[in-house]
């Protein structure tokens, strides 16, 4: 037992001995103790150390914040401390006795005068009384051939082999000790190798530990090591120490290439606020140019980019000017974008629009489209914004949000603009798939403004379903239901909302005081061809309702639907299917789409078939023809049903094409449909109108005549119009 205790004590003790540098440094920023443990050696050495930590107190407060707070005077004195420490470092403790000349001899034998002089200087500082030989190159060779070989291996960086050779000799020649100079150089070489290997593997704690334990590694003759130390500090949340390391190089080291590379590295790793003061340490080159001139462009880019990211506009005008010159001459789209965002943040919309347009022209991108769309919305041109953003809507969450904002703003324009049906369709589709409440609401108001309260009510219901506590949606629904004279519906809103919404309460007060309640007839969903001047408002009912709609919106039917949905997540596919049909009967195709979607997950093929069929019909009713076509493919359908859907889809496409003035396309869809099922009267009129629009009055007249003969009013009108036109021309 006591042996065990001894062993424990030993383990603790040996850890202390071996580990000035062993304490593992983790990269977690929260690990205060580990960080300070690793910091000890460096601080003790007084190298590369942010002295403000001693002055500013313990712990993490000293990493970033203190740098900005500490006055310049503090900095200067710290610097002096570091310098002192560095020069002190260069002098190891003074040894006694005779100098070891083996290194001197080695460098002399190789004719390496630079190292030879350095070694002489080193020996002189160690042994002030020692007189260097008059002709060092003439110093006799090492007589010890084996030792010479060790130096040779060392010079080639074959450190493991030097170690093995030392061990070999100590084994064969007990009592032999290698020169202390060789050992210390060897240790330093090994530490450097390990430091670089560890740095390559991003083992930053090891890097810092090795740097701390080997202060002689840290000097201008080996800037690479200093760079790696700096990076290790920055990447382990000790940025200020990284800054100190870079500053050390820029203050003390003279190689111009290395200085420039240092500035580049600092710029790449540090925020601008930390990098700028370092760049101020630049010196003039031999030709008088400032040595970091080539970095100015990058700096300007960074300045604008960082301001944009932080939502700041306080960029040095010189940086903006430089970037504008760059964007003008080199013309990189990314520079133009930076300027676009900056001007937008400043509220300079003209300039912002110009730069975004140029960027988009140079190289179309989601970011350029987004910037342009936001500016256009701000300038009251949401329609253009919608068109630009549509292609980028799936590029990112931000892009999607921008698209939806553009679409919603477009719908909200007063007075309501006439929007092309395919644009309305795509906006409605995106608003649906994103469950974007404000968008659904605006679709409601848009329909309402074209006097289509039934459609409006569906959109407000949808918005309310996505956001049940959304008062504006409830108010919209109230207005729409009132227009439809839907009393139970109106009463429902009064019940749920009057206590919560003053304007809804006020609405009912007005109703109560009015002598005759305004009873408006429900506006029929306009068939687009009836009034070509007004675009069809989405969603609209399919032209051929293949399933009879419920005659009444019975409360009992509605509660039946709710009963089905009360099954919650556990509701069976069969229940969801029933609910889908129920909602279709209630003219709530938006919700029906979702119920059918849930039913589509059923393992049962017949249920899936029904669900696909139902969902396709629901989309048709919403006027979302493409979605209807997709839904029809979600499960194999019986031929009769597939044909039925196909007929309805083609009819819808024909209508949409006609509304978009694509008359040839209209005829193609009508022909495809006619191949499946005989053309109905209204589609025949559509066909005739398409012919007429294409200038084929003969074909148009032929159809109108056939219809006129069976007493169809549109047919007779068509015949009349064409004849009168002919009269005019004739």
């Amino acid at each position, binding site marked *: 037992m006591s042996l065990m205790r*001894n062993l424990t004590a030993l*383990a603790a003790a040996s850890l202390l001995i071996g580990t000035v540098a*062993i304490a593992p440094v983790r990269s977690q920023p929260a690990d205060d103790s580990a960080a300070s443990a690793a910091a000890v050696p460096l601080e003790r050495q007084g190298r590369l150390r942010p002295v403000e930590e001693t002055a500013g107190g313990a712990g993490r407060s000293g990493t970033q914040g203190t740098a900005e707070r500490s006055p310049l005077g503090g900095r200067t004195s710290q610097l002096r401390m570091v310098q002192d420490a560095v020069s002190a470092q260069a002098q190891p403790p003074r040894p006694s006795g005779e100098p070891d000349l083996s290194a001197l001899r080695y460098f002399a034998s190789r004719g390496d005068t630079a190292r030879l002089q350095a070694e002489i200087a080193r020996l002189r500082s160690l042994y002030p009384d020692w007189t260097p030989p008059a002709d060092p190159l003439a110093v006799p060779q090492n007589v010890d051939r084996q030792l010479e070989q060790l130096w040779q291996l060392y010079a080639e960086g074959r450190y*493991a*082999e030097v170690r093995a050779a030392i*061990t070999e000799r100590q084994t064969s020649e007990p009592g032999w000790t290698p020169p202390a100079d060789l050992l210390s150089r060897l240790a330093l070489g090994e530490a450097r190798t390990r430091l670089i*290997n560890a740095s390559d593997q991003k083992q930053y704690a090891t890097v810092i530990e090795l740097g701390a334990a080997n202060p002689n590694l840290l000097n201008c003759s080996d800037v690479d090591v200093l760079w790696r130390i700096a990076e290790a500090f920055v990447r382990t949340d000790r940025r200020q120490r990284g800054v100190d390391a870079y500053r050390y190089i820029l203050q003390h080291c003279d190689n111009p290439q290395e200085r420039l590379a240092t500035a580049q590295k600092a710029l790449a790793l540090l925020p601008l606020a930390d990098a700028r003061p370092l760049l101020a340490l630049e010196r003039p080159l031999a030709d008088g140019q400032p040595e970091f001139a080539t970095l100015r462009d990058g700096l300007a880019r960074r300045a604008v980019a960082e301001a944009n990211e932080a939502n700041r506009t306080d960029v040095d005008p010189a940086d903006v000017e430089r970037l504008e010159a760059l964007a003008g001459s080199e013309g990189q789209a990314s520079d133009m974008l930076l300027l676009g965002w900056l001007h937008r943040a400043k509220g300079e919309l003209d300039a912002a629009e110009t730069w975004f347009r140029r960027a988009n022209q140079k190289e179309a991108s989601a970011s350029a489209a987004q910037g342009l769309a936001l500016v256009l919305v701000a300038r009251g041109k949401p329609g253009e914004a919608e068109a630009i953003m549509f292609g980028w809507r799936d590029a990112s969450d931000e892009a999607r949000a921008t698209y939806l904002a553009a679409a919603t703003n477009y719908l909200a324009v007063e007075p309501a603009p006439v929007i092309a049906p395919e644009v309305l369709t795509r906006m409605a589709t995106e608003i649906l798939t994103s469950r974007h409440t404000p968008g659904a609401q605006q679709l409601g108001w848009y329909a309402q403004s074209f006097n289509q309260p039934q459609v409006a009510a569906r959109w407000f219901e949808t918005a309310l379903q996505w956001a049940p506590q959304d008062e504006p949606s409830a108010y919209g629904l109230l207005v729409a239901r009132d227009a439809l004279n839907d009393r139970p519906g109106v009463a429902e809103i009064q019940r749920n909302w009057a206590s919560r919404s003053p304007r809804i309460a006020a609405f009912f007060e007005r109703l109560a005081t009015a002598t005759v309640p305004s009873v408006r007839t429900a506006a029929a969903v306009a068939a687009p061809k009836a009034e070509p001047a007004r675009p069809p408002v989405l969603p609209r009912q399919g032209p051929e309702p293949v399933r009879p709609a419920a005659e009444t919106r019975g409360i009992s039917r509605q509660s039946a639907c709710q009963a089905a949905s009360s099954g919650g997540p556990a509701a069976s596919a069969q229940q969801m299917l029933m609910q889908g049909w129920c909602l279709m009967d209630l003219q709530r195709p938006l919700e029906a789409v979702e119920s059918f979607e849930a039913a589509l997950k059923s393992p049962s093929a017949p249920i899936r078939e029904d669900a696909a069929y139902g969902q396709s019909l629901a989309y048709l009713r919403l006027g979302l023809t493409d979605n209807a076509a997709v839904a029809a493919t979600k499960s194999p359908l019986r031929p009769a049903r597939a044909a039925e859907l196909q007929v309805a889809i083609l009819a819808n496409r024909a209508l949409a094409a006609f509304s978009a003035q694509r008359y040839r396309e209209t005829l193609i869809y009508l022909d495809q449909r006619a191949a499946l099922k005989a053309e109905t009267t209204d589609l025949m009129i559509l066909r005739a109108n398409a012919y007429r629009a294409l200038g084929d009055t003969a074909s148009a007249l032929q159809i109108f005549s056939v219809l006129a003969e069976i007493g169809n009013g549109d047919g007779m009108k068509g015949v009349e119009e064409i004849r009168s036109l002919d009269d005019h021309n004739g």
Partner: protein
Amino acid sequence: MKSWLSMLFTLLMLLPASLAHAVEPSIHEDEWAQYRSRFLDRGGRIIDNGNRGISHSEGQGYGMLLAFLADNRADFELIWRFTRNELLLRDDGLAAWKWDPAAQPHVTDVNSATDGDLLIAYALALAGSGWDNRDYVAAATRIAKSILRETVVRHAGKTILLPGASGFSSQDRDDGPVINPSYWIFEAFPVMNALVPSEAWGRLSTDGLQLMTQLQFGPAQLPAEWVSLRSAPRPAAGFERIFGYNSVRIPLYMARARVGDTAALARLRAALAAEGRPMATVDLSTGRPLQPLTDRGYMIILSLLDCITDGTRVPETMQDFQPDLYFPATLQLLALSFLREEHAACL
């Protein structure tokens, strides 16, 4: 000073008797010379010539252990220094496992391999106490601490060894923890305990031994190379479901550590090979042999088990060292060293 001596004493007690008394080393000079000329590059790297000439922490650990058993201090120092400079880089104090001479930087996977770490620490501890070198023991202690902290974990009431610092734990994998039973180097655990005393080492040994008897998969009743311990042990997903080259070491390690009763070793011996069914890697799903294991480095393990279970003599050819591939050559020297120290009568 006193504690250093007492640790040295403990470690010496754990050493094979022959070593502590500096008689003839259990790996002969000519054997080590052959091994060295074939697998040791002049810079101190053990070359796995069966794996495109790469090196790894396992090979470095084996090289150090064999150099120690051959009583060659200079070669030990050479291999160790390479290991330290090139692999012992990780922040957590473990070795990066993979080193490729063709790649730059040479370390191509910085993750650790626990068997490599164990072998390096074990060899350092043996050499440090056998040759009275404190630096070696300090380095061994540091690695042992890291192994304990990073890879020795409790799972479902058992103490287990994760194969590496990342990628194998229950947090890292859906079927984690995943282990490699051939990483249980039983002989190293008591030495680790002398370096860094912890009850976990003893439990690792006991629980590991129990685990080894459980791992009998498929018709062949052999352990899988990678085993999921999420629920009942089963071959881990995403790895080949085989009894592979690595697993051959399981009985060798058990025998060398003198753990596991004769019956357990006899069962493993029977599962490995029998009359008319030579030793091979095995597809565990079908029990069918894949690659025959004919190298004497593998075959000697059968002879070693025979020697332990019924005293059968080890055939002369098995004792003849003609190295070809790094891995079986290493196993053959470990087996020979053990037989010379513990079962000289079988030779």
